Every structure is written in C-alpha cells, then in structure tokens.
C-alpha cells in the first residue's frame, strides 16, 4: 500500500442484521432481520420531518464520523467540519416523499402540501441534512447515477480530496425499500436494500496529522461499458495474451500494488460466469445478503472490502458496480492497510 493517496478512516453502517463491521463478512441469504430503527440508534431528536432515507443516512454518517474519531456521540458537531465534504449517493432516496407530495396535490389540493415537508422533496436533501446535523461545511453534493452511483460517489469524494477541495469526505450511500420504490422499479420491496452505509475518506496527510488509522487505501477507479472491460483494465494481467479485451475507459486515482483476493461483483452477477483474469478470486455479491442496493451498492461494497481486510481474508479487493446491460460499469481497487499485510 502506498503511504500517499486516499484512505478510508471511518465506517458507519445502518443495515438490517448488522451490529458491527465484521458482520459484513458473513455471506449467505438475507437474514430475516428487522430494518434499522434510526430513533433507536441515534435518538429521536432531529429526526422529525426527515424522510427515511435521510434518517438512515444520519445514522450511518454519525457512526462513520465517530469511528473516524471526528465526533463523539455526545459531541456531534465536527470540529474539522470546514474541511470536510459530503458526497451522498441515492437513486430512489426521496422517491416516496416526491410521489406522496405529487399524489396529494393530484388527489387533494394545493393546500394539502405542508411547507415543512418541502425540503424532503428537494433532491439534495440527504447530503445537506447530513451537513447540517454534523456541521460539515465543505463541498456538498449528491449523485443519482444509476447502478454505478455509489462507486462514483466514492471516486468523487477521492477526487475532491486529490484536487485539494477538501481534506476529507464523508461518502454516504442510502436506499429505502417501500411500496413506491417497488412499484416504480418493479423490484419487490423485500428485495430492496433498506439501509445506509457511510465511509470517511481522508488524504494520507490529513489522516496522519490527526493520528487517524487507515482501514483501506483507495486504488485506481475506472468507468467502462462492460464488466469484462472494467475488470480487464483494473487487474494486473495480460489481456492480449489471455484473449481478453482491455477496456477503453476513463480512469483516475492511485495504485494498489497487490493483486486482489476477493471480487465484489455487480448486483446479481453470475457467480460462476467465466471471466479472464478473475480465476481464483473469491466472488461476493453483497446484494444477495442485503437486497438490491441501487445507489448505495458501491459504498456498501467498499465497506464490505474494509471488513474483509480487518478479518485478514484479503490484502486487496476488486469492486465493480453495474453490468453489461446497464448505462455504465464502475470499478475500483482497494488495498488493505499496511499493518494488515
């Protein structure tokens, strides 16, 4: 692992059946766990009028910031808030709020709409609510970019840091499963993620200055039109020799030296599909455990990679979101912290 670059220094999870990061490693079918209860996790204060996506994001954000040592549960205002960005990803986040409002206007009247509910219909509500609660005054944005959105958010956070626009970035992926999202996407409610994941990304300098511990380093990120192309451009193998096709795509970020031991595959990817260069890689689909994760997927996959590193299972991980039928495939390499090698 390079000592420079961007590192994950905090992790926060609001996922069904997950009490701690280590629970992410256990794979298998989705447990019949109850959905996360935001009020139980962070108290009722400040949750009124917030939609569920925002509440879940606040839970994950609080835990990630605590985990990184940037706040404590008793002192939520982040002292380093001026140099901390927020990048949130959600494709369906406030769809229920928007549709409820649209339905009320159609069914009842203009007067049926509460001004108090208006911020929930604003597309950036998750990112801005997180900023307000924890006092994060750096760049603040949301992505709703389809299946690649979560990984794009991780990349975007890293890009804000490498461009010197923030010292650290809180990246949040959140989706909610409800009747509205089920009707509009055609995905049954019980096969949708109802949860949030947050990561604190930090430049190595910022992390070192405050004595923060790296949980993983971010390697190169690519965007391609196919899974094979994406994998081909990230893995250190000779594509021409093995007959594979190297991707032509956009790339950014640093380098992870080691070859990966685990591949977090796209949502519902065929776990036995042959793909040159991935022989011997353990494949893991987090959506088989937590449901289709849409805009939260990439963030959830990075969190899962962190817990793999912590368990000593792998020293590098390959993460891909989106498959060949999608608008785009995003990929990234992550490396274990040096001490874990």
């Amino acid at each position, binding site marked *: 692992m390079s000592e420079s670059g961007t590192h994950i220094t905090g992790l926060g999870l609001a996922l069904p059946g997950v009490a701690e990061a280590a629970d992410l490693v256990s794979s298998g079918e989705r447990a019949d766990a109850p959905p996360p209860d935001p009020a139980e996790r962070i108290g009722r204060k400040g949750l009124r009028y917030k939609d569920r996506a925002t509440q879940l994001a606040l839970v994950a954000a609080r835990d990630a910031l605590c985990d990184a040592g940037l706040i404590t549960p008793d002192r939520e205002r982040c002292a380093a808030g001026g140099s901390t960005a927020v990048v949130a990803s959600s494709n369906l986040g406030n769809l229920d709020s928007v549709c409820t409002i649209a339905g009320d206007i159609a069914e009842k009247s203009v007067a049926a709409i509460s001004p108090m509910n208006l911020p929930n219909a604003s597309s950036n509500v998750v990112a801005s609510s997180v900023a307000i609660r924890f006092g994060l005054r750096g760049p603040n944005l949301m992505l709703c970019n389809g299946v690649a959105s979560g990984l794009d958010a991780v990349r975007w956070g890293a890009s804000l840091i490498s461009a010197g626009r923030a010292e650290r970035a809180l990246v949040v992926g959140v989706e909610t499963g409800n009747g509205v999202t089920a*009707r*509009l996407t055609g995905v049954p409610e019980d096969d949708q993620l109802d949860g949030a994941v947050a990561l604190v990304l930090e430049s190595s300098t910022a992390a070192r200055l405050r004595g923060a511990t790296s949980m993983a380093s971010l390697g190169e990120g690519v965007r391609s039109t196919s899974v094979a192309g994406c994998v081909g451009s990230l893995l250190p193998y000779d594509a021409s020799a093995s007959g594979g096709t190297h991707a032509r795509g956009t790339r950014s970020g640093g380098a992870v030296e080691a070859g990966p031991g685990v591949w977090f595959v796209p949502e519902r990817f065929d776990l036995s599909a042959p793909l040159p260069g991935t022989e011997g890689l353990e494949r893991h689909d987090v959506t088989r455990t937590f449901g289709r994760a849409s805009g939260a997927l990439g963030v959830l996959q990075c969190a899962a990679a962190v817990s793999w590193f912590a368990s000593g299972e792998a020293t590098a991980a390959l993460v891909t979101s989106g498959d060949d039928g999608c608008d785009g495939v995003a990929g990234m390499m992550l490396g274990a912290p040096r001490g874990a090698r």
Partner: protein
Amino acid sequence: MPASPARRVVITGLGAVSSIGTGREAFLSALRSGRTAAKPITAFDTTGYEHAIGCAVADFEPEQWMRNLAPETLGRASQFSVSAARMAVADAGLTDGELREQPCLVSIGTTDGESHDLDHLVESEVRHGPGAMDAGIARRVPAGRLSAAIAHELGLEQVEAVTLPTACAAGNYAIGYGYDAIRSGDTEYALCGGADALCRKTFTGFYRLGTIAPERCQPFDKNRQGILTGEGAGVLLLESLESAVARGARIYAEVLGYGLNCDAHHPVAPNQDSVARCMQLALDDAEVKSSEVDFISAHGTGTKANDVTEAAAIRQVFGDRPPRTVSIKSMIGHTMGAASALASIACALAITEGFIPPTINHVETDPECALDCVPNEAIEADLRVVQNNGLAFGGNNAVVIFGRHEGRTA
C-alpha cells in the same frame, strides 16, 4: 495531485435550450434584448392555485437535434439535456467520431430529474390505480438518464456519465467537476451543465412557501415577489487549452476556478457568511482578486430572502463598490438544475460578445440590496473576469469564475 502541471481549461462549445431561445444565437439575441418568457403555465393542471405563471420552453422539437435516440424514450428533461449536448458538440466543431476517440466526461446537474413524468405517473395511479401507470414512462424516470442518454446519443464508450441532483446549484457543480477532470488529465472532453423540466411538485413546493411571484420575476427590486419556475438545459463543452489550440477551436472563455461549500445551517434559508466564503473560495481557486471581477451573474432568484442575503454576501467579499450584478432569472425564470448552467453560458457569451445582459422587470432597486443590476437594458462592456453564483436549498453553494481567454494570455 497529478505529477504533471495542471492544464488550463477552456469552453469551446455551447448548447442552450431555454424559454427565451434555443441554440446559441437565439439565446444570445434574447439575452441582449432582454426578452421575457413568462406565460400562464400549461405543462400541468393549475386549478386551485391563485396564480400560475411560468417560463416554459415552447414548441420544443427534440427530433431537430437528436439523431440516434428516439425522443419518446426520454423524459422532457433528458430530451433537453441531450439536445443541448448535441448543440454544444456541433458548436465546438467536433464530430461524433472525434469525441469517441478520447476519454469523455458527461456531468449533468438537476433538481427534479424526470419529476414531470413522476407527476403524471402518480396522478394516473391516484385516479385509476397502480395498473394505470405507463411502463414506458416509468422507464424514463431514473434521473441517471439525464447524463447517460447523452453518452448513448453520442455513442461514447470511454465515458464517465454522472447526474448530480444538487438542486439549484447543480449546473455549477457539474462544470466544476468537468474542470477538475480536464485539469488533472483524467479526461479530454467534458460535456457539463444542467437540465430540468417544469413540474407541479416543485412549483407547488415554492408556492406553499409563498415564494412564487404572481406575474413576473424582479431580482433585487424593492417590490420583488419571488421566483417564476422555468425549464430548459445548458451544456458547455470543456477541453484543455492545448487541445483547443491544436484543433483551432473557437474559445469562448477560460474556466479559471471554482468554489464549493455548504452552509450546514438550514434546509432552505441561505447563510450570508457561508455564501461569502464560497465566493472567496472560488476567487482564491481562480487566483483572481475581487477587484478584477467585471460582473457577477447572481443566483438572484427574486425572493426576499435570497436577494438580500446574496447582495450582503457580495458586499462582504467585494466591499462597498461591488461589480455590476445581474440575474438572468428575470428573463428565463428559475430553471432549477439548469439555472447555473444557462447562466454560465450567458457569462461565456457576455465575455465573447462584450456585453452584460440586463436584469429585466426592474422598477426600483431595493436599498437593502443596493446593487447595480443593469436594469432592463443590456450594456456594452469589455469583460475579462466574470463570476457565476449558484446557491441551493440545503445550503449547497457553488461559484465558478470565467475569464476571457485572450485577456489572460496577452
């Protein structure tokens, strides 16, 4: 940070879909003449609203611009974004083939995505049950389509296509991301901007906050009564200076830098200190002194709160003699995610053509704002540095600084 020196970034293509004119020439002519597009809203049923004036794009013909995708497979906002992107590519003198040869970025900001379609889907569900929802329209709804459809239309394969729902500052966010991507060498061409279509949900939200003007939008006027909602798209083609020079492209302006921050203060009310800080971040990033800014294209929505807060923030940064500060929202209404993108196009045209667009509908300047808003008539001006403000609900601020290319290399 990249090991090689950062590259300079220039604007070489402009695409505008707006209520006062579609295409660069029509938009430019309307900006110069101070046209208005305010008319009674017909995009949705306005029964029950005391007033419903908006700035719609009339007689829009996406098939005039789109070559490869069928317009009916896209929602109205995506039709706008794809058409504006097509215009920007043509304006830059690039062929699809030349574009495909290089890594590209498509970044499009929005407030509502395809909420216009959602309005219709939900209304048919409410009236006729879930079975009545049109599957074809439901497929158009994902907001990621706004940028992905551009990549599909242009046949781009080496592309990162992102959609940013950073509400009313999203266009500037998208341009800033494009600037960083080209500057660092991650990409060669960037199609950046924003798009939104009129939708009842957003109109109603602002209406219920009491911030919709009954007839006209009057930024910085003593008797301003709020916003008019609008629609459209603005897309700018960015590339490195060396690329533009090598292919002999016309350079409208240089992107000198930008600033982003978040008030972290209130869901809807802007914060003066934080807005001022964002402007200073942008000026510092552009390595420009405040005294060098020739005019500011304000967020200037025409609400009581925005205009007085933004004006005070401008004075905080620029002192007692701030540069002329205009709002093109007086002409095109508040086009949400497209607003700062269309305003950026106006800035680029202003620099190239040597004029400052007016703030129309102006009667009497609010003494609490006390800005020279170039009332009602455009003025000729020799411009070197221009600032474009974008402020959004949630305290999401984004400010971009543009410079005249020749003026900075001489």
